[in-house]
């Protein structure tokens, strides 16, 4: 027992903290995305590997450069840029030229995040900002699909992957033809050509179809989301709201007219919906903080997705649905501020 005066450190309460950090959340999202990325490399080969690497590296490099230029502390270590890069890569078609990927990564971080003030201040999901830019700038490349499980995919790239900057990407028709897949049309299952030929939901579920690099295997995405859920790092209400509302709305439409509208299972498991619902809509920064707000936000995404898919001219609505919902998140938050304990009014309306 020491009777010497104790050299006490003074800190303010609370003196205990829940052991969960922003760093750990981002790291776990990256870990949860890893199996999705690995499956896509397995399905699409060398091209997918290069695509995901370039997307991640370009995002991290941009983050680093932005921090350097603005004189802010380096925030590369918080993993959020890596997550953005990985997500961006997973939404792109495997044949996407690498130089375009790099541009997308720079836009994601530079325009989608840094311009707003960095992590926590951005209104839109950075990966989707990059993706939306690429969609507008390179509409053809972004919708050129190649089949999965092509022989020799680990030895050689899809020709367009290594296209030179600003040159017209090499057409992939030959590659597709060489792959010799029966009745492959080069269209993602969602490219509804009058909705005559739909992929089997089970194939979509298992990832046996073509599509964007990381969007094909719904079951894997679900499992990875489950991992985050168990670790308490994912708000289950968002995927539940998005998938539930897509299922319900498309189910009702399908009942009304099964010829025009595809079935709910197809709608839920196709395209980027699963990846979007579990990994992008759930981005904490760009989704509401209030409980009611979270439900409004996620149902909004589901409804807009169905509307765009069935009524719009775009094959893929999830991305725009999430971006739109991101845009109204501040508004939703203002509307859904909880009633303060012991009052009858909302916090924001009492001033």
């Amino acid at each position, binding site marked *: 027992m020491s009777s010497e005066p104790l050299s006490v450190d003074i800190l303010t309460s609370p003196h205990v903290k829940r052991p969960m950090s922003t760093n750990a959340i981002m790291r776990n999202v990256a870990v949860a995305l890893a199996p999705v990325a690995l499956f896509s490399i397995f399905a699409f080969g060398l091209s997918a590997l290069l695509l995901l690497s370039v997307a991640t590296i370009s995002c991290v490099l941009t983050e680093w450069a932005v921090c350097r230029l603005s004189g802010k502390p380096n925030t590369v270590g918080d993993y959020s840029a890596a997550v953005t890069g990985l997500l961006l890569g997973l939404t792109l078609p495997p044949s996407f030229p690498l130089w375009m990927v790099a541009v997308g990564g720079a836009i994601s971080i530079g325009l989608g995040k840094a311009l707003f003030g960095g992590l926590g201040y951005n209104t839109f999901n950075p990966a989707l900002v990059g993706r939306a830019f690429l969609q507008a700038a390179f509409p053809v490349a972004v919708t050129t699909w190649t089949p999965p499980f092509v022989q020799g995919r680990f030895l050689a790239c899809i020709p367009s992957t290594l296209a030179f900057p600003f040159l017209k990407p090499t057409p992939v028709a030959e590659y597709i033809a060489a792959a010799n897949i029966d009745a492959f049309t080069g269209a993602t299952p969602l490219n509804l050509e009058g909705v005559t030929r739909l992929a089997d939901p089970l194939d979509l579920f298992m990832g046996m179809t073509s599509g964007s690099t990381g969007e094909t295997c719904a079951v894997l995405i679900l499992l990875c989301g489950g991992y985050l859920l168990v670790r308490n790092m994912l708000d289950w209400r968002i995927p539940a709201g998005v998938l539930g509302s897509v299922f319900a709305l498309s189910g009702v439409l399908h009942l009304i007219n099964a010829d025009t509208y595809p079935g709910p299972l197809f709608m839920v498991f196709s395209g980027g919906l699963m990846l979007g619902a579990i990994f992008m809509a759930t981005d904490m920064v760009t989704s509401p903080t209030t409980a009611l707000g979270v439900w409004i936000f996620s149902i909004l995404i589901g409804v807009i997705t169905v509307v765009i898919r069935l009524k719009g001219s775009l094959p893929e609505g999830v991305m725009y649905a999430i971006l739109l919902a991101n845009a109204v998140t501040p508004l939703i938050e203002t509307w859904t501020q909880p009633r303060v*304990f012991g009052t009858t009014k909302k916090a924001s309306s*009492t*001033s």
Partner: protein
Amino acid sequence: MAQNFVLGHTFSHGVHPPEHKKGTRTEPIERLGFAPTLVVPLAQHIGAPAKAVVAKKQEVARGELIAEAGGFVSVPMHAPAAGTVTKIDLALIASGSMAPAVYIKVDPEASQEALEGEPFDIEAAAPGDLVGAVQQAGLVGLGGAAFPTHVKMTVPEGKTIDTVLANGCECEPYLTCDHRLMLEQKDELFAGLAIALKATGADRAIIGIEDNKQDALALLRDSVPHGLPIFVAPVKTKYPQGAEKMLIKALLNREVPSGGLPMDVNVACFNVSTLAQMAALLPKRQGLIERVVTVTGPGVRKPGNYLIPLGTPLQFILDHVGLTDDARQVILGGPMMGPSVSSLDVPTTKGVSGILALTQKELDDRPKQVYPCIKCGSCVEACPLYLNPSLLGALARKEEYEAMEQGYHLNDCFECASCTYVCPSNIPLVQYFRIAKSMNRERKAAKRK
């Protein structure tokens, strides 16, 4: 009588910090000896400081009045030990500032019998007399708030109290003094409740206990005296269940209005230790001179629940229980709300329910780096008052303190620190709110001039 309250109920939101109560929950209350010198600050309660009524060199008996109440919202002080007043001077107190205090050199020869006043017939006393006697006893909320008890017992014109709540939640991690008190002094607790029932005119009393104290729940439930309308109710173990507003919500499903008092929903709420002391002191008109304190934490060798004379310097107590070599930080109260002290010269006061010593390890475990708010919403889902700490934090960073108060209910925040506890970005939210409140107070004071 109808038991129209929900059993096992709770409030919404809140957090679950690790309890850390194992070390002391089974340790019986043990009396600690007298330090050579006791330091009794005159302001150790909420409200006006007490006024010293003793002079330097004056001999005092144990329990003798040494300072009288400085107003209605104030309580007197009594000598915690027989001895000589050496000086009335500034002393370092828990907040880190200096405040006037009476220094008493303990007389080692004295018998240390506590002084007894005229017997007080509680049965015959009118409610007003009871309230007066409670103030005379120097009683304040012993759960940590240190708000003068008699003020809560005073029912103003036009108000009625229908329910008295005894708060036995003890929701702060590490603390077990109230738990031990309920196990060891149940008769005093019931007697105290009888006094509170009489003084407030309430027609029932409920003892609310977190369900991590099943032994106390069972014991009290089995021993409620016949004829008293006292009920024992479990509440969920969740922080901050012991906050008055949360306990009232849990047991009665009533919400104390924003800016209001329990009285506004016809409730008076007292800590179980306060009630037990009330029953012990009032019959002989004695004053509060000691209290049970949980001395614990990884930095303490002999953790336990100790009955400690008020005014005992921390150094004396920690010498008695022994600090480990790596002890680094001493906290008064629990780890969620308790301040850490800058010196071990600080004396224990009426509101100190725990002395917690943390080691280098706990300091190292505290995250250092602060990340930007990622709008995860954890704080919103933790705040028991349904505030939006994330938004308040953003305003605080912009120093928009006035807007925080006027638009976002800053003043409802009672600094429970639940938001800071959960924040993954390690943002010092509650610290911001303390600063914002004091800035607002200063601004208002400046305006008044």
